[in-house]
């Protein structure tokens, strides 16, 4: 009788477990500087949840996404992730969008030995060296961003460089990498200034860059700053000597910002992760679905920059769980390290540090952009890829002042 009760209990508890959803927890900047990108990314993640649940979920259990708004505030994320782990008891973790909100949770996930799917962070695992970190962003080191940018500048005869970077984790990581690369390339730094993230007006900084008379101007900024810097450059002018301007400006990839800035973007050469014309299996269908949902959710109407990579993050977890038939974080991490992932942004293979083995970040120049025209950004040719060489779609137009006209 006792054995019968035990077996019955076992069957019922196994049944109950099967009914429980697989909980995936994360914080996402839904307000603040990264809010626009974060809300668009959430639309993509929810699309993946919908899709995976339509296929029966993970290990026969429905997937549930638990999300909190971190307000783009790094101080909020450790508390949110502790709650996700200790109160919500999530099975898996996705990182918040961006370097700044992600950096403070790295010690926590390393200490607890947890798998963390990174979300467009730059070098947050550089010093932590967590072996269960996997970034969905198509880059690895600073060289994956700037080798082509700097080489293009040098081809144009550039010998001097100016740096302008926000005084926060992402921009400093990026700018430090770019500084080293510039030094290696033999470029002379004629201006190097960090600015506080609370800066409202960039006139005096742009004026100082203009006076420095640099050949190349590298900027690492967050969305609100990027828009303000472009406006100030338009008002103050950056000087006739400048051959390249841009590099690491977050926010110039968001459709609302592109539409708002319009022709002011012309000539800027900035990093991007997807520009119209790039082809991956399933990506066109994804954008058709995303754009319909984005219109309903009033978020980035095109969603080229971050959203497909968020969908891909879900696809990678799905592939790893289905292959290992487990939610064991060590097994999943092991699988992600050893196998190529098939996603809507193409195949992804990871290096030991959890960054992409074959980065695909591009530097593209805005061309012939008109004011107040969203549709133009769907066309190839409005963002001409100038590096890397393998995916180049055109030659650079320089100097910057000429390209702006």
């Amino acid at each position, binding site marked *: 009788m006792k054995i019968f009760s035990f077996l019955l209990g076992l069957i019922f508890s196994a049944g109950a477990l099967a009914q429980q959803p697989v909980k995936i927890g994360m914080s996402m900047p839904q*307000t603040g500087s990264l809010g626009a990108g974060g809300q668009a990314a959430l639309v993509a993640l929810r699309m993946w949840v919908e899709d995976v649940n339509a296929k029966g979920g993970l290990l026969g259990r429905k997937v549930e996404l638990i999300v909190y708004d971190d307000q783009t505030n790094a101080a909020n994320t450790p508390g949110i992730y502790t709650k996700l782990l200790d109160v919500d008891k999530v099975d898996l973790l996705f990182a918040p969008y961006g370097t700044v909100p992600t950096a403070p949770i790295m010690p926590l996930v390393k200490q607890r030995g947890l798998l963390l799917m990174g979300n467009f962070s730059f070098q947050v695992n550089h010093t932590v060296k967590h072996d269960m970190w996997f970034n969905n962003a198509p880059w690895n080191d600073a060289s994956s961003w700037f080798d082509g940018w700097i080489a293009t500048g040098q081809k144009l005869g550039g010998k001097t460089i100016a740096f302008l970077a926000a005084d926060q984790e992402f921009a400093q990581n990026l700018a430090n990498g770019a500084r080293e690369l510039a030094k290696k390339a033999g470029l002379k730094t004629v201006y190097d200034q*960090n600015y506080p993230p609370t800066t409202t007006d960039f006139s005096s900084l742009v004026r100082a860059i203009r006076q420095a008379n640099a050949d190349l101007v590298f900027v690492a900024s967050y969305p609100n700053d990027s*828009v303000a810097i472009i406006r100030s450059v338009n*008002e103050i002018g950056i000087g006739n000597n400048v051959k390249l301007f841009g590099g690491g400006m977050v926010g110039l990839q968001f459709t609302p910002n592109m539409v708002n800035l319009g022709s002011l973007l012309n000539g800027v050469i900035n990093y991007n992760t997807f520009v119209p014309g790039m082809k991956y299996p399933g990506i066109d269908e994804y954008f058709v679905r995303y754009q319909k949902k984005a219109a309903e959710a009033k978020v980035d109407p095109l969603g080229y920059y971050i959203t497909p990579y968020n969908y891909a993050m879900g696809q990678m977890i799905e592939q790893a769980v289905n292959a290992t038939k487990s939610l064991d974080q060590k097994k999943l991490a092991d699988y992600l390290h050893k196998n190529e992932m098939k996603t809507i942004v193409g195949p992804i293979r990871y290096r030991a540090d959890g960054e992409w083995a074959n980065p695909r970040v591009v530097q593209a120049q805005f061309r012939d952009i008109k004011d107040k025209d969203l549709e133009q950004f769907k066309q190839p040719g409005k963002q001409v890829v100038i590096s890397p060489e393998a995916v180049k779609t055109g030659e650079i137009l320089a100097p910057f002042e000429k390209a702006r006209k």
Partner: protein
Amino acid sequence: MLGCFYAAVSIGLSVSFGLLDVPHVAHPAIMVLGSYCTWMLSVRGWDPIVAGVVLMPLFFVLGVLIYRFYYEVFEKRGSDAGVRGLAFFFGLAFIIEVGLILVFGVDQRSVEAAYIGKSFSVGDFRIPMRMVVAFGVALLLTFSLSIYLSKTFTGRAIKAVAQDEPALRLMGANPVRIKQWAFGIATAVSALAGAMLIIVSPVEPAIDRLYIGRTFCVVVLAGLGSMTGTLAAGLILGVAESIVLMQLGASWAPAVAFSLLLIVLGIRPQGLFGR
């Protein structure tokens, strides 16, 4: 010019906090609400400054209603009104912020006008027109409020209510109505400051958080309730921030406002222009 802009965004608070002693931490949020209302009129072809001026009477009414609620629920009931009022205004700020997110989303909004995106040159030195406009409006706003507060009966009553409420009552004026009127003016001024905010830079619903510390700092640095002092304090803060940014580095710039505040309060507790 940046300093004048700081003064313009602080001047409403100088009335509500400086003169009325109301812990109005929702002031920057109301200003951002003004920016979004300006944006709504701007996309219909209105000039942002004109839109800001047109919005002032509506915001005046909003201010009167907010104060009336604050008075009935908190101020009227006792001595701990300040602390509870602080919670009320924090709540109000969050409601405004979340409301803006629900209605407009989190994307940045900006306006267009003939003077935005243009600059004029003095030799090789270019000055953005939007900052000149903000500078001009800030000056106009400061001097108009100064004259109103010193030359009109209601203005003097507003100053009096800050100094001696029972005495004002003995003079036959109703302090609550005077405060209500003053809070309305402070909120109306926020509408114009909001218009200037969206002229100077694009706005998003959470941008008010950037201004909470700065505006309170300017008002206290100036000396509570001093309009010309607010202008001077804004200028000092703007210049000091720029110098520190260039000379000491970016990390020190956000500390400028509060360092200045500590130094000034240490030497002159009533603020630079306080009596």
